Structure formats: C-alpha cells, structure tokens
C-alpha cells in the first residue's frame, strides 16, 4: 500500500508540474509579458525600466530557462508580485484566504448535512411523495444558475423582507452568522443536490442487498437497519464526492463572492481579471491545485481506514 501511495504522490507532482507548464505557456502565449504594463495608448514605462524588468523576470534568457526560474521561484514560495496591487502574490492570497475558507467550509458543511440525510430519506421512501419532493429539490439545485439564486435571495431576504444583510462579511475579525447565511445557502444548494443524488443511488443499491433484507427479517428496527446497516455501507460515494465538492466550491465562490461583495479569493480573481493581473491569477490557480492534490491523497488514506476491503491497484 505504501508503494501505491508513493505512486500517487509522484503522479500528483507530475500533474502539478504539467499544470505549471500549461500556465507558463499561457503567460507567454501573447508574447512579452511586459506588454501588460503598456496601456492601449502606447505609453507606459521608459526603456531603462523595461530592460531592468526584463532582467528581473529573466526575459533575456531562453524560454525553457525562464520556465525553470519560474518553477524554482514558486517552489521556494515566491509567486512573484501582483501587478495591480504591487504586493507579493502570496501575501495578498494569505490576506484573503480565511474569508473564502469560512464561506466554503460553511457551504460544505451545510451541503453535507442537508444533502446526505435527504438522500437517505429519498431512497427509503422510493417512489413516494417525499422522494419526488427531494428529487425536485435536487433538480432545482442542479439547474438554477448560482448567481441567479444569490440575486433572488438578496431580493427576498435583504430587499423585501429586510431580515438579512445583502452582502459583505460584516465588521470585526470574525464573520457574523447573519452575514454568512445567505452566501452559504446560495453556495450550498448545488453540492446538496449532488450529495442527495449520489447518496440516494448508493442507498438504493445497499437496501437491495441480502444482508439488509435479513436484518429486517430478523426483526431489527427499520431505522436501525437504515442508519446502521445500510448507510454505513453506502458512505463511500458521498465521501468521495465530498472532496470534489470542496474543490468545486472554488468555482462557486468566484460567483457567490461577486454577488455578495465578499472579500475573498474568488472576488480577488475577478479583480485580477479586470486588472489583467496574470501573476496573481496564476498564483491562486496553483495554490488551489496543490491543495486539491493534497485532499485527494488524504481521501485515499481515509478510504483505507474506513473500508479495509478496498484494494489498491
């Protein structure tokens, strides 16, 4: 098993390297990266600064060498400097990351505690009213555009009823529950729908097995069978999904943070888009990619712990 984990780690590093290669080729696809500093009017920086910057970014060397410099800088934790904010990329991300993490984790937990139980009830009530109701809820969650859900929620709960604030994370170092509620609900609906569907399928499969029927025939209570016998064996698909959901929330946060004016990484990415701030975007992308790889590895370890039957191949 150690061998398999080692192989996964090596493959992960290769993937990260190729991802960096993709990003680097994109940064050079439009030519000299210094052109970003020149405005549409053709004025920007004087030739001396131009040369100095070229030296600093190693633009006087061949392209593969430039790539090697770039990678070695990143490995040492230097993601370069943000063009728009004139600060090191890593520092900018460090400032904003906690806000995004709070939002994403809140949505993650909310999605899990809504989606998984509803999926179980949907499976145990197969073909009945509750099943259709929950599946309708899932269908809506997977079909409604997330930005539209956010705007509609703002319209009802912030503009019409005035129960909750429309955006921002509120004052102080911590995020108040009131401010977190609307963005988290908006972000959690789609994952909740995914959880529901996958848990339902897994539960239906397990409920059909002989040992579940035997447990019922022996006279074990319905709820014990559902939660103790069936659910524990249906837990692997939702668990696998949870890592993908957390990674998928990166996409969601970009939109939700824009709708709710939430000062996190997602809005930072959009601001970087408007400022054509390539180093910042590349830094965000690589950091999220690395975090994702780490999560997949951890998932492999959790599998081995949860279900000893799983054989690595």
């Amino acid at each position, binding site marked *: 098993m150690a061998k398999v984990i080692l192989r996964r780690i090596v493959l992960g590093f290769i993937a990260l390297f190729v991802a960096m290669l993709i*990003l680097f080729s994109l940064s050079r696809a439009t030519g000299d990266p210094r052109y970003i500093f020149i405005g549409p009017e053709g004025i920007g920086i004087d030739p001396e600064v131009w040369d100095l910057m070229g030296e600093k970014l190693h633009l006087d060397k061949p392209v593969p060498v430039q790539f090697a410099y770039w990678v070695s800088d990143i490995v040492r934790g230097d993601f370069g400097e943000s063009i728009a904010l004139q600060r090191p990329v890593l520092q900018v991300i460090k400032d904003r990351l906690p806000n995004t993490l709070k939002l994403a984790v809140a949505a993650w937990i909310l999605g899990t505690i809504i989606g998984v139980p509803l999926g179980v009830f949907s499976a145990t009530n197969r073909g009945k009213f509750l099943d259709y109701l929950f599946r309708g809820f899932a269908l809506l969650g997977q079909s409604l555009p997330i930005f*539209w859900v956010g705007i509609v929620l703002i319209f009802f709960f912030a503009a019409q009823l005035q129960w909750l604030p429309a955006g921002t994370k509120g004052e102080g170092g911590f995020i108040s529950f009131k401010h977190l509620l609307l963005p988290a609900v908006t972000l959690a609906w789609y994952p909740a729908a995914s959880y529901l569907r996958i848990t339902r399928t897994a539960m239906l499969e397990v409920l059909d097995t002989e040992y579940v029927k035997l447990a019922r025939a022996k006279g074990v209570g319905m709820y014990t069978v559902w939660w103790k016998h069936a659910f524990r064996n249906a837990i692997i698909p939702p668990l696998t999904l949870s890592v993908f959901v957390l990674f998928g929330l*990166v996409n969601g946060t970009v939109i939700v943070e824009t709708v709710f004016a939430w000062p996190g990484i997602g809005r930072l990415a959009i601001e970087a888009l408007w400022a054509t701030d390539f180093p910042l975007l590349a830094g965000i992308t690589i950091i999220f*990619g690395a975090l994702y790889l780490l999560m997949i590895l951890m998932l492999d370890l959790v599998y081995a712990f949860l279900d000893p039957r799983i054989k690595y191949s």
Partner: protein
Amino acid sequence: MNTPITKKTTENKIDRPIWNAPIRLFFIMRRYPIIPMMVIGLLIITAIFGTWMEPHDPIRADVLSRHIPPFWMEGGDTKFLLGTDALGRDVLSRIIGGASVTLLVVTASVTTGVVVGTGLGLVTGYFGGFVDDVVMRIVDAWGILPQLLIIIIIVLTFGQGLFVLIGVLAMLSWTGAVRLVRAETLSLRSRDYVLLAQIAGASNTRIIFRHILPGVINMVIVTATLGTGTIILTEASLSFLGAGIPPPDPTWGKMVGDERMYVGAAWWTSFFPGIAIAMVVMSGNFLGDWMRDRFDPTLRQL
C-alpha cells in the same frame, strides 16, 4: 349482481374517472420526456428564427422607456410583455436574442470537446504506450486546475470573443470524454471479436472505427447530453462575470449580471433570464437522464 362482469370491466375502461387523466398523462410523461423536448425545440426555433420573433430591437436603447414593469403589474405596458431594463430595452426581445448565443455556444463547444475527447480516448486506449502517458498526464494536470479560474486566465490571455468562449467551454468536456472512452476502449480491445478482427487482418483504423467506436458511442452521447447543463451554466456564469461574449450581443447570463444592482427596484430584468437558463438546463438534465436509462443502463450510478 345480475349484470355480467365482462360488461362492467369494459365500461370501466371507457368511463375512467376524471382524475385518471392527469395520472395517465403523468405516466406517459415519465416514459417520454415531452416537456424537456418541447423546451429544447422552442430553444432551437427561437435561436434560428429569433430575429423575426423579437417584438423590439434587443440592442437599441431607449431611455424614455426604462424599467417598465411586466404587463400584468401596475404601470406595465402590453407593448413590453416582460418589461424593460435600465436602458429601456425589451427584456423578452433580449431573451429571444440570447437564445441563439446559448444554442450556438453549447452545441459547438460540446461537439468539439466530445469529438476531440473521444478521438484521443480511442487512440490512447487502443495503442497505449508513450502517447497514452503524455495525454493522461495532461488530463491529470487539467483536472487539478480550478476550472473557472483557468477559463478566466485563458479569456485574459486571448481576449473575449465567441471562438475563445467556444474553445474554452470545449476544454471543459474533453477530459471527461478522454477518461471514459479510454477506460471503455481498454476493456473492449481485449474482447474476442476485436482479437478475431486483428487475426483476420483488419487494419487498426478499421478496428477502431468499425469495432470499438460503436461500443462506446452510446456512452459518449449520453454523457455529453448530461454535461450540457454544466456547460450552459458555465457559459452563463462567464457572461455574468463579464468574461463571456463582449457587448452588445445579449446573453442570458449577461442580462442578469448587468441588471443585478437594480434587483430591488426592477426584479424582472434579472429574474426572467435566470428562468430561461434554468429551464434549458433542467431540460438538458432530464433528457440526459432519460437517454441514460434508455440507451446505457450501465451508467446508472453516475
């Protein structure tokens, strides 16, 4: 008691109780996705004939008629059925105008992505070796990059435009197709009928197209249909964020995005385009589910 039973049953068959009709309709609709097909048909018709169906010019602004509510509300006008936006443009006309963009972008990107992905999957799965390694490493690398961020980076490097958008969305679907087709090809190529074809002297091209492709094509079509919903939502999100097709062409995502600051005063400007997106996505999901159950039951767990 005296009436023959046979007669009674035939009578029952003819005079079904009135509440049976909706139930029967429900079962017919469960067997065939009629409503989703109608929605998709409507989308195709509006996309093709949209220019003649628009009651007003979707692009020209008219400041005098800004933020007129839908016709059933107070102050509404039957000239503008779904109201007007902040620049006085008719919301209904803009929704109709946006249909063509949605249809074009989605069909073009899904087709490109699926054809490229299937081709690569067939080649890597059948031949293996160095090409397989290279392609799979790129697929792995693509998988760890957050999709929306990498799309934004590509839009930033190549600029906004229709072809960039189509290419970028095609990239969303190709990796999934490669993985799926490659796995299926790997299992198919060691089957007896493929081995026999090889012994009979069939060329690799012939085996791939005549013997392996028919075995994977159903799965490809089903997963492509299931994936259209995500593509439409991503396109709408990009338009919403301002990274989609540049103005003035109307798209549904952009309509929501442009008008979102007025939601308190004029909810209809961002509400109806969202409904349009949701209906098309929902229809795509329904059709995909139906096709999966129908053509490829092995994919049930997806």
